[in-house]
């Protein structure tokens, strides 16, 4: 174990570097957790919850940040694991119950972190090669990881505070005493093997490793930090174009591309998946509003005859992509007023789609009363495409795409 640690020693593998990368990674985890909770509660609000409807691109930013930060975690997490890797060979492996719990929590932390960012990334292109449900596990692991992060900070707090600021000596301290090759460790080796080095193949391999030239510490550290910085910039910069327009030109590796889709807008759930094509194209379609016992149905022509409003709103998906578009239709507020609905009423939106977890969703009164919230009939100057929710869909500021109900069938006051 001592030899393994010694062979793995590197100027990069020191507590100061662990602190530098660790606090970036910790911040990234907290950002992912915060934006993730926001998205979760938008989709499953508790009764008392009310949400901001401005700025209208709020969800585009929070969820875009969630995905971008998650992608940034790939280089940051691997860098952190690279730095602390020699600790895997800590000797003795377990020194007692507390030490065992600490190491077990680290193992779970590492494994769960890798799983969390991997399933999150694959979910952005709807690829699910794992034997468990994504949403529930991703949400539960979020809590697990933040709990483990706080525990990890508690355990390492003396190290973190000691190496938070750069000190002249901190650069040259390695992760463990064994690694620095001090005499005490050599004595331990002599006790184990009768020599400073095991015989046979192991010894020869270790000699080979020892004979390899080592890069000067300063170069090695600078190179490492630059590499982590460039890698993080690259994975973020080459994928964030699906969310943020200025990076659209260098969008090489995002699962979505701005402007690609019917009427220039990407599609998530298709009419085929939702099995709504027949019902949506039926001439007899009408939108029913139900408020305190009164029901009234509107054909598409009747909706078009009502005062029309044009808005510029992004459609922003949980998967991180977003697309600005111009929508035209009837203000939901006007329809609610037509039905004499109380201004404090929240609504339930029901799609023609019969199955699917978002075929029935709720809309809080803050969105119902917002002048930008429309029952949209047109998109980018044309009649709404079937894939975008023809005959009518919901569009509201600052809500996730799954709540912008397509193929509307019925709107009820709750």
């Amino acid at each position: 174990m001592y030899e393994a640690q010694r062979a793995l020693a590197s100027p990069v593998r020191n507590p100061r570097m662990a602190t530098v990368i660790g606090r970036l990674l910790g911040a990234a985890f907290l950002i992912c957790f915060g934006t993730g909770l926001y998205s979760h509660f938008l989709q499953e609000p508790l009764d008392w919850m009310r949400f901001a409807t401005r700025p209208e691109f709020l969800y585009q930013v929070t969820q875009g940040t969630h995905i971008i930060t998650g992608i940034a975690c790939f280089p940051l997490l691997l860098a952190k694991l690279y730095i602390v890797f020699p600790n895997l060979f800590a000797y003795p492996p377990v020194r007692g119950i507390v030490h065992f719990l600490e190491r077990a929590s680290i193992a779970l932390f590492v494994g769960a972190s890798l799983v969390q960012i991997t399933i999150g990334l694959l979910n952005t292109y709807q690829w699910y090669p794992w034997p468990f449900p994504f949403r529930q596990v991703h949400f539960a692991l979020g809590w697990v990881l933040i709990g483990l992060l706080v525990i990890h900070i508690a355990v390492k707090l003396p190290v973190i505070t000691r190496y938070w600021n750069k000190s002249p000596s901190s650069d040259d301290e390695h992760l463990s005493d064994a690694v620095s090759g001090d005499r005490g460790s050599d004595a331990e080796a002599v006790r184990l093997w009768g020599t400073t080095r095991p015989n046979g193949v192991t010894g020869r391999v270790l000699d080979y490793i020892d004979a390899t030239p080592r890069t000067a510490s300063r170069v090695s550290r600078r190179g490492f930090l630059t590499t982590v910085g460039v890698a993080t910039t690259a994975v973020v910069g080459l994928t964030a174009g699906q969310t943020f327009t200025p990076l659209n030109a260098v969008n090489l590796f995002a699962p979505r591309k701005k402007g690609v889709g019917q009427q220039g807008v990407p599609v998530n759930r298709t009419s085929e998946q939702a099995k709504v094509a027949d019902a949506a194209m039926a001439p007899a379609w009408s939108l029913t509003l139900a408020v305190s016992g009164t029901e009234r149905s509107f054909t598409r022509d009747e909706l078009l005859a009502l005062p029309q409003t044009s808005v510029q709103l992004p459609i922003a998906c949980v998967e991180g992509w977003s697309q600005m578009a111009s929508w035209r239709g009837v203000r939901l507020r006007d329809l609610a007023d037509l039905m004499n609905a109380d201004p404090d009423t929240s609504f339930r939106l029901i799609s023609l789609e019969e199955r699917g977890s978002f075929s029935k969703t709720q809309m809080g009164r803050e969105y119902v009363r917002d002048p930008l919230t429309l029952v949209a009939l047109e998109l980018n100057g044309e009649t709404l495409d079937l894939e975008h929710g023809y005959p009518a869909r919901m569009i509201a500021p600052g809500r996730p795409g799954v709540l912008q109900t397509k193929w509307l069938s019925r709107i009820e006051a709750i």
Partner: protein
Amino acid sequence: MTSLQGGLTPPPAGIEASTGQRMRSIRLVLLGVGVLMLAWGAFVMFDSVRLTRIPGVALWIAAAIVLHDAILAPIVFAFGIALRRVGRRATGTIIAIVQGGIVVGSLVSLVAVPLIVAKNFAPANPTVLPLNYGLNLGIFWLVLAVVTVGLSVWAFLRGRRPDVAFPDDSGR
């Protein structure tokens, strides 16, 4: 053993003197909060995921640890050794540049290759995975190679004295 491995056992000399009791209480509070959040996460997991699916989660977590600790990390280690051997006449700066270039390329590939694989499995609709990711990755590696070689040449021409330090063997 230094502090990184010290865990909850008393911190090493030089640390406890300046912090002492306050540090201890902050750590205990953090530990309590962390354990509560961890427990809540476990509860949410068992509450919302069917029991028969939980082993799948555990399996993936275990596989991730093995994949990193037993496969990825040794490969990276061997690669570092090999590179330093091959480039033993090069300066440390050039080695760092080449190493950095390969690591950046690998990390971008890590994000890009799943896109290429997933695209073969017929994406949900034509607006999902619309780009030619294989071509994009090729272009990226090409640009990266040009930049890496360019930087290496620049570092070489700067003609600094070699800053590769051979390990001293005084310890043996």
